[in-house]
Every structure is written in structure tokens, then in C-alpha cells.
């Protein structure tokens, strides 16, 4: 005996457990009095039982249980990394600013009466910065005045023989 055509869809949904509660009551009342629909419902339940997914394995179950915790820790790690990047950037900017301040401020921040650093002693004179060098000739003249050989003027000279009074044609 065939199922009632207007109930076929409901029967299938009920067999799959997807029928609304309100309709379940009506359908169950109908099934009590309709043998054809009962047979079709039983056949659907049997068929769906064959199609059901196998039960989850222990490993799958463990992974499913682990999923929320893993998702949360991944989210936290991403947030920490972003926070660290921002901190690194902040630290680098701060370093650049500090270096700039250290280099620029002392030369700019000088009160009118304070622009004179302490005069050098003979020992302190050696620590003054280089720059704006006098030309080699002036330096050589200054060294010669002080009684020093002007080293800036000494090169790999070809005129050694002349300086030393050697005869350039002499053979050893």
C-alpha cells in the first residue's frame, strides 16, 4: 500500500528528524490510522540509517574537543605578534629620536653667554674634533716653526739622493 501523496514529504523529513514539532504531532496522529504511510515512514528510516555517517573516531573526537582551545590560542598569538610589532616600531622610533636629540641638541641649545667651552689645556687640545683643517702648507710651516719635520710634506721622494748629497750616477 502506497503512502498518501500529501504526506510523502513530511514522512521523509520526520524520518530525517527535520520536521517541525507542531507538524510531528499531526503526522503521528495520521500514521496511527494510515498503514501505507507507516510502511513508507519505516522504509525511509531504514534507508536513512544506511546513509548515516560512521561514528567519529577517538582522534576525531579529541580534535573536535581541542578545536576551541586551539582557535583561542591562535588568536592570542596573532594579537601578541601584532602588539610586539607595534612595540618594536615604537622602540625604533624612540631610538632614532634619542640619537637625533643627542647629536643635535647640544650644539643648538646654548645660551648666549655660554657659547664658550672651557679653553684647552695642552692635554685637552688633543681631544678637540677634527675638521676645517688648515692646508698642508700652513700645517707644514707651523710644524717647522715648532722644530718638527713637516711630515705632511714628506712623500716617497725621488730626490733623496739630492738631499743626502749622493751622486745619482753612483753604482753600488
Amino acid at each position, binding site marked *: 500500500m502506497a503512502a498518501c501523496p500529501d504526506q510523502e514529504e513530511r514522512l521523509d523529513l520526520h524520518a530525517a528528524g527535520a520536521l517541525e514539532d507542531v507538524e510531528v504531532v499531526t503526522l503521528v496522529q495520521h500514521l496511527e490510522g494510515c498503514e501505507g504511510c507507516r510502511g513508507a515512514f519505516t522504509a525511509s528510516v531504514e534507508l536513512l540509517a544506511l546513509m548515516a555517517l560512521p561514528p567519529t573516531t577517538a582522534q576525531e573526537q579529541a580534535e573536535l574537543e581541542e578545536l576551541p582551545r586551539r582557535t583561542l590560542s591562535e588568536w592570542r598569538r596573532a594579537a601578541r605578534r601584532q602588539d610586539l*610589532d607595534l612595540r618594536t616600531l615604537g622602540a625604533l622610533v624612540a631610538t632614532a629620536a634619542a640619537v637625533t636629540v643627542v647629536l643635535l641638541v647640544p650644539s643648538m641649545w646654548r645660551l648666549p653667554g655660554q657659547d664658550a667651552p672651557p679653553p*684647552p689645556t695642552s692635554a685637552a687640545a688633543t681631544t678637540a674634533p*677634527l675638521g676645517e683643517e688648515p692646508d698642508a702648507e700652513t700645517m707644514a710651516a707651523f710644524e717647522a716653526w*715648532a722644530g718638527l719635520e713637516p*711630515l705632511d710634506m*714628506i712623500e716617497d721622494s725621488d730626490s733623496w739622493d739630492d738631499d743626502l748629497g749622493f751622486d745619482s750616477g753612483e753604482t753600488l
Partner: protein
Amino acid sequence: MKTMARTRMAVLLLALAPLVAVASAPEREARLEERLEQAETRHRLRQVLELSNVLGLDNAQALTLEATLRTFDEQRRPLRRQVRESARILHRASRGDSEALAQVDAAALSAFEARERIAALDKELYLTLAKALPKEKRATLALTLARTEGRRKKM
């Protein structure tokens, strides 16, 4: 993430750029020191040759002479630094550098002081070298040293 890495690199380079500039000054100073040291060695060798020639020294005596001259060069080195630094300060002051102008007197005095100590060293060098020489060669030594100084002043 790539943008972040690039930004970080750019900021790092910006932060390091002033340090590189600051680091180059000592490097330049080291190069200058090295150049002066080489010139000092060449000058010493020339002196050894000249004195060995005029005083008729043998190899062993020339080596002893070289060692003596080296000792005196080492004593002259800080005085040379003092003289050169004074020259730099005076040069800058002559161009109106306010920082250098405040150091003019100290720099000039420092140069005079170094000059006196260099003259004392020259005298001490003569006495050290003359000690082992007979009178005639002492005279030759004095004349040679004077001639070297005269040449130096004509440079």
C-alpha cells in the same frame, strides 16, 4: 607583514645613519695617524742614511742610531699632536669660529710650550748621539742636524 618589515628596516636605517656619521670621524683620525706614522718612518730612515753617510757609521752603528732616533720620535709624537691641534684651533679662530676663538690663548701657549719641549728633545738627541763620537764627528753631527733644520725651515 611585509609593510611592517620594510617600515622597521627604514626606521632602523634612519636611526643608524647619525651613528655612521659619528663613527666616520674616528676612522678619519686613525687614517691620519697612520699616514703620519708612515711619514715619520720615512723621515727617520732618511736621517739614518744621512747621518750614517756623514759620520761613516757601519751597519751595527746605523742600527743603534735608528733605535735611538725611534725613541726620540716616540717622545716627539705627542708634541706633534699638540702642535697640530693648536694649528687647527688657531686656523679655525682666524676664520671667526666662535668655539675656537675662546681657545686662542690656550692654543698659542700650547704651541709655544710644545716648541720648547721639542727644542729640548733636539738638544738631548744631539747629546745622546755625540756621546759615542770623537770631537770631529761631533762637529759634523751638529752641522748635519743644523742643516736638516735649516732645510726644514725653508720648506
